[in-house]
């Protein structure tokens, strides 16, 4: 086979394989169902990364595996390949195209970061206090304290995280976002729960012996139910 | 160097030290008299003060003139 035929064949294979990979990546549900508006841009970014990653992976894999099969040489004789030392247009291309992709991804990422850390009007404020090895939630607007995090659906929430001892991290997989609770400072997290149901908040930063079990219930309810819960606790 | 040999070198040492002490005094005056916002000046003065030591005492230029023997 001539050199060009190899190239054409491999390119066709690249297109096929990357199409398959992209279709798989974009249509499989890898992750738990999203339950907060902040989850949308994060999931979008993840799929974008997987899509681009799939194409790059297919490109490299096809050329690698194709070379192994097409150019395998079994004897240790004096046969040597053509002395291609460099080809500048190709090298420039594989420097500039990844650079462009990286720039594009960085802009996308910056936008997502902006989206998820934006403050919303009329936020429900909750103080999240982490300690070894449990969580406590305070609602200063209502003068409440609770063992569970109960949130009304579709209302923006501002979490103020603090820690009494070591570093912990607030993570509800279905909300996607994550923020550390650091002793000596207050960190914030914005989220808007968008789906009813009960979830769990896990500690995502190793915090000692009880780290694996450090969790608390998170319950997203209708606003009316939230009001009743508040009234009941206030009594 | 205007004066070659050991005497010239020793004299150069005095000049460098004089400059260093002058910078120190300037630093000290800046630091003690101006109440705040002095760190940019101090940084510049520290850099200016470090250079003579690096250049005249530590002979940093030997690095890019590798053929020189000791400090001749």
């Amino acid at each position: 086979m001539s050199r060009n035929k190899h190239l054409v064949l491999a390119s066709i294979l690249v297109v096929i394989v990357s199409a398959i990979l992209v279709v798989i990546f974009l249509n499989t549900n890898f992750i738990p169902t999203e339950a907060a508006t902040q989850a949308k841009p994060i999931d979008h970014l993840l799929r974008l990364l997987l899509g681009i990653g799939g194409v790059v992976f297919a490109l490299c894999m096809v050329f690698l595996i194709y070379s192994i099969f097409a150019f395998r040489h079994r004897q240790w004789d004096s046969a040597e390949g053509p002395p291609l030392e460099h080809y500048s247009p190709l090298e420039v291309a594989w420097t500039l195209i990844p650079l462009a992709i990286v720039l594009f991804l960085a802009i996308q990422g910056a936008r997502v970061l902006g989206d998820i850390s934006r403050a919303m009007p009329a936020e429900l404020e909750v103080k999240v206090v982490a300690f070894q090895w449990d969580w406590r939630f305070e609602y200063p607007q209502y003068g409440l304290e609770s063992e569970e995090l109960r949130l009304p659906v579709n209302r923006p929430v501002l979490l103020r995280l603090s820690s009494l001892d070591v570093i912990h991290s607030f993570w509800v997989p279905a909300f996607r976002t994550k923020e550390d609770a650091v002793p000596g400072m207050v960190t914030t997290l914005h989220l808007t729960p968008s789906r009813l149901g009960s979830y769990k908040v896990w500690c995502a930063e190793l915090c000692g012996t009880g780290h694996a079990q450090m969790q608390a219930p998170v319950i997203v309810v209708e606003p009316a139910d939230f009001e009743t819960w508040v009234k009941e606790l206030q009594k | 160097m205007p004066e070659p040999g050991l005497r010239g070198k020793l004299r150069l040492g005095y000049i460098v030290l004089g400059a260093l002490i002058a910078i120190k005094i300037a630093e000290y005056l800046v630091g003690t008299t101006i109440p705040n916002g002095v760190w940019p000046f101090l940084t510049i003065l520290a850099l200016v003060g470090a250079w003579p030591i690096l250049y005249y005492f530590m002979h940093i230029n030997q690095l890019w003139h590798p053929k020189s023997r000791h400090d001749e």
Partner: protein
Amino acid sequence: MTFWRLGIIRGIVVGLAGSGLGMGVTMLLRIALGLTAWKAGPVTAVGTVVGILFYLAGLGAFKYWLGWVRRRAAEEPQATEPTQPHWARYLSFDINHKTIGIQYLVTSLLVIIVAGIYQLIARLETSQPGLQFLSPNTYNSLVSLHGIMMLSGVLLGIAGMMNYLVPLMIGARDMAFPRLNAISYWLTPPAVLLFLFSLPAGGFDTGWTAYPPLSLRAPLGMQLMLIAFYLVGWSSILGSINFLTTIFKMRAPGMSLFRMPIFIWATIATALLQLVFTQFVGIAFLMLLLERLTGLGFFDPDKGGNVILFQHLFWFYSHPAVYIFVLPGLGVISEVVPVFSRKPLFGYKAVAISSLGIAFGGMIVWGHHMFAAGMEEWLRVPFMFTTLLVAVPTGIKIFSWLATMWLGKIHLETPMLFVISAIVVFLIGGIPVDLYIHDTYWVVAHFHSTLFGGFVFPMMAAIHFWFPKVTGRLLDERLGKRYWTVMTVGFLVTYLPMFWLGLNGMRRRIADYDPALGLGTMNTVATIGGYLTGLAMLLFFINLVVSARRGAPAPANPWHSQTLEWQVSSPPPEENFVTIPQIVGSPYGYGIPGSRHALIPMSSQPPEEVS
């Protein structure tokens, strides 16, 4: 007493005595100050430090300098006498770079085995939800030790490869500072011992990252680990000074920068990173130690400290550390691919410079580990960009390898097979990370892929590639291929499930997880994969030992490579080159008629007259 003549025996005995002395003096001092004599922290800390100094002295590390001060250094002191057996030099303060390289590599493999066994135990615990047989504290200690010991093992491994290869590849007779080189190595055995003692001393349940305030409360094992890694850190700083000086000043005549093998470029980039950044993790660990021992308030908010400070200092080293680990591996791949494709390395200059690109890119990415850590908001975006930016020089390397293989005459011997695994796995590891994934098993799978692709597989390729050179014997090719198969399959079975686990909410560093999440099956699969890699390693060691003793004798240049180290006998002579070679061309001139990398004048015959 021949036994006493072994450096290591003297080192251990004198070191133990010194350690006892240090502890005794500290206790006396404490009594004098009116404190209780025994307090584990300070007493053992002083004991360890004094012990290490005594151990180095006992070993003979300071013999030359003390002799210099007393004007008794007429000639180079010999570590071993001719009457001692050959292996004795590996247990003594020997200053030949090849001996030191082998010492490093053997230590590295031992550390990696122990760290691997720790993780296999911990992995068994995690294969099903619920607590099986380990307490959470033991589990965390095992996982943490696995992390820090693997990192140390990797640092030792790259130091070993670079020590053995750099002087040979650039045509030098030894490193620039042979004694310093030996000290760099001998700092690490006490570190390994301290790591081993850490578990009986209570372990530490902080992860290898040792974030305060948790690490301030951890048991005594923490302190041993901090000192141990500090030693490893200094070992790599001193090593990097040696490598840089050697490469910049001791290349054979004719070897311009762009005639150096890529591995040398990788060494420069690695050593630059080590030289500068190891100081940061060193100071961070030292500050932790000081805060634990003396109550200085670096990280305690009540004393005006700041918890995040540690993370900045720590990641300032530990992210570039990833590039420290993978750069030599990428260098090895660049060496192996042209030899087994019988083609020149495609885009040599770009590949060479991309090593430096990765190094400089790696200097400015530390913050991406702290996205969720309460870092200043405005810092996030630049960090994200710089992190992604490192992908560009990495991509240049990968594309160049593929272009080198294209249209080549590819020989699928074991080193090449490992290189192929490395490229595949490295690509898998390259899939980027974002906020959701932070601190989950995705991260675990991601960095293990990067390290397997960037270090483990290339190091295995390197061992299979250079084994004939080092030992003068060939490795068993069939066993090598079997090992490769089991290792690659084991890797995929272990880590592909982990990507899935991470996406489904499996957090890192947990001994137990909620059965309701339905993660049990995949965890079991990952455990099976883990034991497969363990089995593979067993095959590897059998092959190493058997081939080193009974393998077929190796010719000087079994792979028909053009680089310098293959132009001398296997194993190389004591001083590498009887006559210093003259470098005349590219190291990868395969397929170019008449191309040569070096001319080595034979000492036995007079140099040829050029007419």
